[in-house]
């Protein structure tokens, strides 16, 4: 489908959606009134920017189901996401919502080359979490054979992969790494002893480095999948190109905004992902600010698809720092440091305000093997780190090299930023 046709379709769907919600959703009606926008004001796809944003907080404030539209009779399922902070969020589905969800996953699986002959082990949790059932119905939709393994009992999972001739797996990237390690301990060479060749990995942030590690260790091609329960669950995947996640234009409209100003950013610019679900019925989502950081590419993919692609999610907006007016994400710092082999994996960002000026210090551990007795080598390394950071962040950064093991280690979510500014 050409880009123009796709956008014409999106405009029609958006228009219908906005009229419907203005009439049938108290929440959206009130929000639109407050923003002084009427459905008649939506005269082009770009007019979506006139519509107010929706936040995770709105879902929490309207717990459990006050944002649902339509009759309880039409609901066929709930999923509940555990909130690490505050109340959980409840999402509901009509039959058509479930169909669209399965369709979206099915297209993604097809785009990486999976089909009727494949056997897919779904090693995401089944239950209130959307991962298991989301992949389950998507895989069934393409006619693949599903092994609903869910999580846990890794040795058994590896036996199943061998015995049932599993060709594809869906799980979190960290579980994939774990599984590869357990397989090795069991004396199972995934490449030689199994038919597993494809992995659909998501539900937690991962990096390109991790993809390479997984692919090299197992011979499996690993694809990123994206989604959140508010949008339905896991929905969108990379295609065979492994270069960006296709967002099906008939189901969702993508914007990337500056999280501070709310202004829309252009292709390639990093910012906060905003999604409008064009066909969702039970729990509509207009301009939903997920809080994930990405950029988009609206060029046609080498795979031939014209649907917009978003890049790998590189962090959360909550982590964003503003240094001298420039948005800086700790994930960008991490990425930059990863490109320099002489550095360890641990780093810390210290932000201070000296006079009127923000200063950002990046403290990073030196790798033991990189230590040179010559001061010049260390100074060069330090300058190189500062240079790479300056280039990637567009802001000058102070660098401090520290001994390995001196920075605090975190078991769970790493707290890498110390902001000492008193604003």
């Amino acid at each position, binding site marked *: 489908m050409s880009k123009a046709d796709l956008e014409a379709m999106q405009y029609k769907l958006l228009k219908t959606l906005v009229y419907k919600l203005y009439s049938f959703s108290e929440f959206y009606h009130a929000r639109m009134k407050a923003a002084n926008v009427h459905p008649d004001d939506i005269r082009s796809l770009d007019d979506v920017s006139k519509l107010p944003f929706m936040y995770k907080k709105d879902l929490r404030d309207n717990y459990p189901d006050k944002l649902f539209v339509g009759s309880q009779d039409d609901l066929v399922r709930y999923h509940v996401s555990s909130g690490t902070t505050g109340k959980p969020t409840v999402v509901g589905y009509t039959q058509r919502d479930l169909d669209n969800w399965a369709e979206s996953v099915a297209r993604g699986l097809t785009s990486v080359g999976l089909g009727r002959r494949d056997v897919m082990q779904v090693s995401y949790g089944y239950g209130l979490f959307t991962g298991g059932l989301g992949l389950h119905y998507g895989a069934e939709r393409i006619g693949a054979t599903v092994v609903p393994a869910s999580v846990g009992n890794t040795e058994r999972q590896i036996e199943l992969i061998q015995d049932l001739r599993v060709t594809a797996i869906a799980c979190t990237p960290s579980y994939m790494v774990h599984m590869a390690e357990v397989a090795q301990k069991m004396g199972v060479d995934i490449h030689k002893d199994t038919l597993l060749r494809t992995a659909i990995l998501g539900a937690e942030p991962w990096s390109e480095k991790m993809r390479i590690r997984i692919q090299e260790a197992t011979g499996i091609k690993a694809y990123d999948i994206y989604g959140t329960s508010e949008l339905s669950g896991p929905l969108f995947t990379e295609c065979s190109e492994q270069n960006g996640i296709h967002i099906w234009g008939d189901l969702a409209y993508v914007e990337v905004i500056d999280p501070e100003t709310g202004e829309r950013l252009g292709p390639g610019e990093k910012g906060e992902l905003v999604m409008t679900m064009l066909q969702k019925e039970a729990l509509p989502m207009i301009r939903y600010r997920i809080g994930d950081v990405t950029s988009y590419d609206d060029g046609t993919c080498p795979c031939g698809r014209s649907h917009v692609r978003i890049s790998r999610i590189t962090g959360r907006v909550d982590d964003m720092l503003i240094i001298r007016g420039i948005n800086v994400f700790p994930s960008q710092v991490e990425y930059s440091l990863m490109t320099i082999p002489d550095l360890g994996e641990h780093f810390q960002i210290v932000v201070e305000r000296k006079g009127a000026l923000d200063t950002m210090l990046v403290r990073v551990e030196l790798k033991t093997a990189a*230590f*040179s*007795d010559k001061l010049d080598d260390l*100074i060069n390394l*330090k300058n190189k780190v500062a240079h790479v950071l300056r280039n990637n962040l567009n802001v000058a950064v102070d660098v*401090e090299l520290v*001994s390995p093991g*001196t920075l605090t280690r975190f078991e769970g979510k790493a707290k890498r930023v110390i902001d000492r500014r008193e604003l």
Partner: protein
Amino acid sequence: MSYTIKQISIFAENKPGRLASIAEVLEAENINIRAFSIAEASGFGVVRALVDRPEMAHQRLTELGYVVSTTDVIGVKMRDKPGGLREIAKMLGNAGINIEYAYAYSGRPAAVLVLRVDHVDEAIKVILASNGNLVEEKELA
């Protein structure tokens, strides 16, 4: 006869107490420091030391998480008189050998200039050929 001496170099953040903690490790192992210097850049430094048991010092410090490397240096005995340094510096200069860094101590076995040069073996040859006196590793023990 070995004239190259194993110097240990330790990476250290420029912070109060860092040197004390390094010295404490050596003390606990009963390792004696014969000579040492600190080279300083912004925010960090390199502590270089000649010790009586360099392997043990390297091992202990590494175990405790310090970044340590070992470098071959030479020690040249100088006349502890005006002109002592000139004689040695000139010897190397004439032979086209570059000194990367140096530090000195005056004491046992003599006034000694510790040198890190670009060509260690060449430097040893030149100094011996010019009747210079080199410190042997065992003299530090």
